[in-house]
């Protein structure tokens, strides 16, 4: 069965290591090629107008904010913190409202939120992917589980708050549960759709070639569903941040959602914006990481698409 394990898509990189001598030269060449291709695309990107458009987009947004709040002082935006006020607060060694790059609390909030999202995301992935794959693959499992999931899925995370508080006595429990829930649904559903997206002829070919039921799961279902699974994970991490904030506003002593909510009640408006932007950046980075892991695991896809040129 060790031989069996050596064939999987996931193990491809290992199988082509130095032990597989005849393949070694080509596969190392393959890695270098991959890096070179990435560099080539990056250089092309720098030469194209796209990065400058991206910067321009941010300038426009911040410019509009600055003009409407600090220059024109539009009545609707009265009381809103302007960009200079936010930046001054953010960079200050002694922030007026207690939160800036220089206060340890800032990082405690970020780390607390990160930790909650991490736990919830890992749980939702570890439970959601296998569950989704099994529902997608086995009709019996689908008949048991799918209707229940579909009934629970539309219930918004906020509606779970009272039950979550009743169910988990600790302070962390309810927040993590609320963060977990929508992420879990997204991962499960997309994994299931991933299995459905696999062409029937792959299953038939595997049958012809004498694969057992478990081998079909391992070599066809898992790699075949992977593109959808990763789409699901990207959605899921976004939803995790989304509902984390809701959870932290209700139950929590730390975290970015808590910062935003308490800053509002304590009238420290620049801190709200600091919390929001930090949330945006951390969320963006976390989904980029998921995307890169997906691209790495699905080398066959990028190489295939790479044929079409850029």
């Amino acid at each position: 069965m060790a031989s069996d394990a050596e064939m999987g898509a996931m193990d491809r990189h290992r199988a082509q290591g130095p032990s597989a001598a005849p393949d070694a030269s080509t596969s190392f060449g393959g890695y270098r090629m991959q890096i070179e291709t990435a560099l080539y695309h990056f250089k092309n990107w720098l030469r194209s107008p796209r990065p400058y458009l991206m910067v321009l987009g941010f300038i426009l947004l911040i410019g509009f904010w600055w003009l409407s709040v600090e220059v024109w002082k539009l009545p609707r935006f009265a009381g809103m913190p302007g960009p200079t006020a936010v930046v001054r607060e953010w960079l200050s060694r002694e922030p007026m409202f207690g939160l800036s790059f220089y206060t340890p609390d800032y990082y405690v909030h970020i780390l607390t939120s990160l930790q909650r999202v991490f736990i919830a995301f890992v749980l939702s992935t570890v439970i959601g992917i296998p569950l989704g794959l099994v529902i997608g693959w086995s009709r019996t499992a689908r008949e048991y589980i799918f209707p229940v999931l579909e009934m629970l899925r539309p219930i918004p995370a906020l509606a779970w708050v009272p039950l979550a508080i009743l169910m988990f006595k600790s302070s962390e429990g309810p927040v993590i549960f609320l963060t977990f829930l929508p992420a879990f649904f997204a991962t499960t559903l997309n994994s299931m759709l991933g299995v459905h997206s696999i062409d029937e002829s792959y299953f038939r070919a595997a049958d012809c070639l004498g694969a057992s039921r478990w081998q079909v799961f391992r070599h066809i279902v898992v790699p075949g569903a992977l593109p959808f699974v990763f789409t699901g994970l990207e959605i899921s991490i976004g939803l995790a941040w989304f509902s984390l904030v809701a959870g932290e506003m209700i139950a929590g002593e730390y975290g970015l959602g808590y910062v935003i909510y308490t800053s509002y009640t304590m009238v420290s408006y620049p801190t709200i914006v600091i919390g929001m932007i930090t949330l945006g950046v951390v969320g963006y980075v976390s989904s980029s990481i998921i995307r890169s892991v997906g691209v790495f695991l699905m080398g066959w896809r990028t190489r295939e698409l790479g044929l079409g040129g850029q």
Partner: protein
Amino acid sequence: MQTTLDQTKARALRGTIRIESAVKVYGNPQNGVVAVDHCSLECPPGEISMVVGPSGCGKTTLLNAIAGFHSLTSGAIYLDDEMLCGPGKPKADPGSDRIVVFQNGALFPWKTNIENVIFGPVMQGKLAVKEAKDKARTMMAEAGLSGIENDYPGQISSGVRRRVEIVRALMNDPKVLLLDEPYRALDSLTKSVMHESLLETCYRNRITVFFITHDLEEAIFLGDQVVIMTSRPCRTKKLLKIDLPHPRDYSIVTSRRFRELMDETMDAVHEEAMKAFELGEREG
């Protein structure tokens, strides 16, 4: 290649497909779609049987029953002396003695070409990965497929993909190869290369081939026999032995005998196509 004459004879004897009064009704047995109706057919061992017939007549249905992808309503299919399906056993078990090469290709895109080729023997535990890879390299080299072992199927052209898929099938030493319009999507130039390479492979391995096509020229060029099917429900209308000499190359296409066989097939197929068309008119 280094098989002695005796071995070749012994191998040539295996792989007879015998279809006896096969019936396949989709849906309700009383009023469902009758796709195959009492179809009987024998594919001699080590020969290429080309199956032609109007679109939607039930050719794929028949192939799927042989491969074991679905059941027969009644009738039986034998491979040599073994009953694949028949009374008491409506559905054959898919197995590596009969391997299908699919119309749109079914190389796993997430595995490299060589990982695809070794899939059968490794899954069945017949060969360890290393041995299988050695064998695969040899077979791929024989088929003129060196240098693409570590590419993914998405990186090679569709013609080459089809050849890799045939090598993947041959790795299992099957008795029968079942092909469902495998070259449909290829341009005619690639097609002729594929034909010659398939013939060469079949001579070398003495495999029974069940090959569905719409292309009559392909049917006569490749076939030892051409089976012309009726419009739905599918039944054998005419069985034509192709007496063109072996080995064949493409110059044969312009010979007189080839044209004669072509005309003969064309007449039978045209008749059925007209029937299918009229049937469609009436049903529509």
